[in-house]
């Protein structure tokens, strides 16, 4: 599902890997649903999500013109300040924030981006990321995974003019594999974590992850952490 909302504030301030809390209209489901921003055009903000339950199902049924309650942007974004070839490694529902990363980097003339997307089956996001990324590689489960792709393009990354920096989002085992691949090659790696969240703004401490600095909040201290912070090797 792709959903676009009009919100000038979020559109102006949203950065890659930041998320927006969506509130259902069902009081039986009081917790906000966090969705990563996938694209911003003028004052329109887009999200791509899968319907995993009745909470997200409600959003799938929205019609153009409906009004919903949201709060955001929340969390700390990827750091893309340094000129680099940002390698956007994503799988599954980790893909949308990296489309936004590609879009963001496309606006920075000192950097470029290389999308490396893994899908279960349908390469659904290639059409979106193609518009922004300098190069797009994608793979589905029938051929391998994102590490297969990274191995394939390793020389290309090494030989490029800009130093590679990995930005990644996706299932935990995938991100750990990506972090390990990066560690071995001494490539900087920022990882945007997913965790079952509470408030989204840092008050409830329900979404944490273990880091070398202790157990930190994914929503407010993250969702982006460096490989070093997470102590992943």
């Amino acid at each position: 599902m792709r959903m676009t909302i009009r919100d000038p504030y979020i559109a102006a301030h949203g950065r890659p890997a930041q998320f927006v809390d969506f509130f259902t209209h069902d009081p039986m489901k009081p917790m906000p649903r966090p969705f990563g921003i996938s694209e911003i055009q003028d004052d329109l903000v887009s999200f791509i999500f899968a319907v995993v339950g009745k909470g997200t199902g409600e959003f799938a049924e929205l019609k153009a013109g409906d009004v919903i309650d949201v709060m955001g942007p929340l969390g700390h974004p990827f750091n893309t300040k340094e000129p680099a070839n940002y390698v956007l490694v994503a799988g599954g529902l980790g893909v949308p924030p990296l489309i936004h990363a590609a879009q963001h980097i496309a606006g920075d003339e000192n950097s470029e981006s290389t999308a490396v997307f893994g899908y279960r089956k349908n390469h659904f996001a290639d059409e979106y990321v193609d518009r922004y990324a300098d190069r797009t590689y994608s793979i589905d489960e029938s051929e391998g995974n994102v590490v297969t792709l990274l191995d394939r393009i390793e020389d290309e990354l090494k030989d490029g003019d800009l130093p590679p920096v990995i930005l990644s989002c996706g299932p935990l085992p995938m991100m750990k594999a990506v972090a390990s691949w990066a560690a071995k090659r001494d490539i900087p790696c920022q990882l945007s974590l997913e965790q079952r969240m509470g408030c989204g703004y840092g008050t409830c401490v329900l979404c944490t992850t273990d880091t070398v600095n202790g157990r930190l909040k994914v929503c407010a201290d993250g969702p982006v952490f460096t490989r070093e912070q997470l102590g992943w090797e």
Partner: protein
Amino acid sequence: MTVTAANPETETMDLYDHEWKHPTVVAGVPWKNPVGTASGTFQYAAVRWFYDVSQLGAVTTKGVSPVPWEGNPGVRTAEGPACNINAVGLQNPGVDHYLVDDLPKLKKIGANVVSNVAGHSDDDYAEVVAKLADSPADMLEINVSCPNVSAGGMSVGTDPVALSRLITRLRKMTDKPMIVKLTPNVTDITVPARAAVEAGADALSLINTIVGMRINTRTGKPIIDHVTGGVSGPAVLPIGLARVWQVRSALPDIPIIGIGGVDSGEKALEYLYAGANAVEVGAAALFDPVAPLRVACELDDLLDDRPELAAKLAEGKTWR
């Protein structure tokens, strides 16, 4: 940040320029209004962006322990029908950090601060209370729901003898008004309530969360890694009200802070009629950051039409 709260009434009320009309007094401490935050759902660093927390009746901070606690690993939360289930495990940076960070910051902006105290043994509690005794904290709240080695691993709140021993010990260490926060996971809440009061508690707050869980029907496994957690949110309102009613019936004079499912001034009012002197807003702040302030404003307006209740609260008395 765009903040659109879940409750549409927020948009039509001016929460940020409210003149408080109906104060209360809890165990001798004046509150601007009868609404505070519930411990565990309030982090000053997160909430300060949303509203001026000094406008609340009180700010109850997250439980602090003698040393930093990391809490429980993995998934800590699940959603239930009209509730949240949490298994944080009292993660906190420790009392020393609290004394140089949250507490002075909150006192600097003029907040009425209730410092919540956590421990895994009687010595833990004593160490924290010793340090808070000389602090600018306005009140202490003792969280007796934590598993406690001094009570054989059970929570002290479920063992009236252990509770009495703990509160007797802490009572000697400070003159600050001391609230004991009771767990509802007991057969008869008036038993620990009485034990706490007889041991020297100046007030009681109730209810803490109720043990609950959810299961992921795709995996057949509990959603929360700790398996069970504490249920809070709208769903627990009737249970919290009944516990406040029961404790008020057993102990006519002790100040009571009602907690559980308060997300509107109307529901806060139910607690006041059940016999509470004040309320705390907990889970609602997870769904709507400004919920505590909104509840305070709504209640303040509802009290306009209830001068008898308002007058009792202003004197530190209650409806029942």
